[in-house]
């Protein structure tokens, strides 16, 4: 578990260094994810090492958003000032994006099936 965690942090560190060195718009942890993905393709040992720890950490993903979430309380005055604009915008845009995304996926997946047959 310690070795797995050390490798996960190492990939994040690599991502962070490269993102900052070349001023990339992609954040360090996302690059780290891509590097780990490349690593998983290359090494069966890395797969066996990282998998249990990663699965464990991801099963508690929700917990990790709580500290930022409490910040909502700290921003209550601003949120209430712009309550209508932000509230309508967040709910409507999230609903639209969910439906648009799912509809596009379903549509293009069906097109692909037709091409195959």
């Amino acid at each position, binding site marked *: 578990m310690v070795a797995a965690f050390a490798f996960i942090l190492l990939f994040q560190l690599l991502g962070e260094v490269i993102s900052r060195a070349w001023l990339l718009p992609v954040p360090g942890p*996302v690059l780290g994810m891509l590097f780990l993905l490349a690593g998983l393709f290359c090494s069966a040992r890395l797969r066996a090492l990282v998998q249990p720890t990663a699965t464990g950490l991801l099963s508690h993903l929700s917990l990790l958003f709580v500290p930022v979430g*409490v910040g909502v309380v700290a921003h209550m005055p601003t949120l209430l000032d712009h309550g209508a604009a932000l509230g309508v*915008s*967040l709910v409507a845009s999230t609903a639209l994006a969910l439906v648009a995304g799912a509809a596009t996926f379903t*549509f293009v997946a069906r097109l692909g099936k037709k091409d195959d047959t």
Partner: protein
Amino acid sequence: MTNPAEIWSYLASQPLLWLCATLFAYWVGDAVFRATKRQPYANPVAIAVILLGTVLWLSDTPYEAYFEGAQFVHFMLGPATVCLAVPLYANRNEVRRTWKPILAALVVGSTTAIFSALAIAWALGADHELLATLAPKSATAPVAIGISEAMGGQPTLTAALVLLTGIIGAIIVTPLLNLFGFRDWRARGLATGVAAHGIGTARAFQVHEQAGAFASIGMGLNAVLTALIAPWALSFFS
């Protein structure tokens, strides 16, 4: 016996108390979530945030003092993002077969989220700074904060909007997509990851393993795409 005020001032200056409170609040939220048979409205993050917010308000504790303790939990977001490579790898064959729908849904979902959010807030009178703060709200928190900062928004308010977006997404996704009759777990998962980042992804994993894997793909790719689209979208509204 020591004066309780002295014990309190010790605890208030140490991370222990608020770290402990964060874990317990989430544990309570998760217990409620399970007790309601995983109803989306009983979102464990929302419950934990309301509990902790109330405690901070009652004890007159500033957010900065709370974050001193909670930062250890917050730090784990980075490693957790890296770990998303594992479900991606596990679904590699599925991803290879469906890269076309994935890419199409990613571009449409991400563009819809950003443009509709900006257009609605703009029509309801939001100023430029607020629009810059709002634009990256569908991307995962660390990414959205960076984008908001670069565009002249308020990063901490962006973090709050990101969280609200995630909770809204996690609550509405199941009834909304059922209403429209989407049955493909891949389509549902991907749309959720794109529209509602990590909180949506966490929700997707609770509902269906494959939906969760596709949600992590959507969230990871959208982190990259939002960084490219958001500044461009913002230029239409200023």
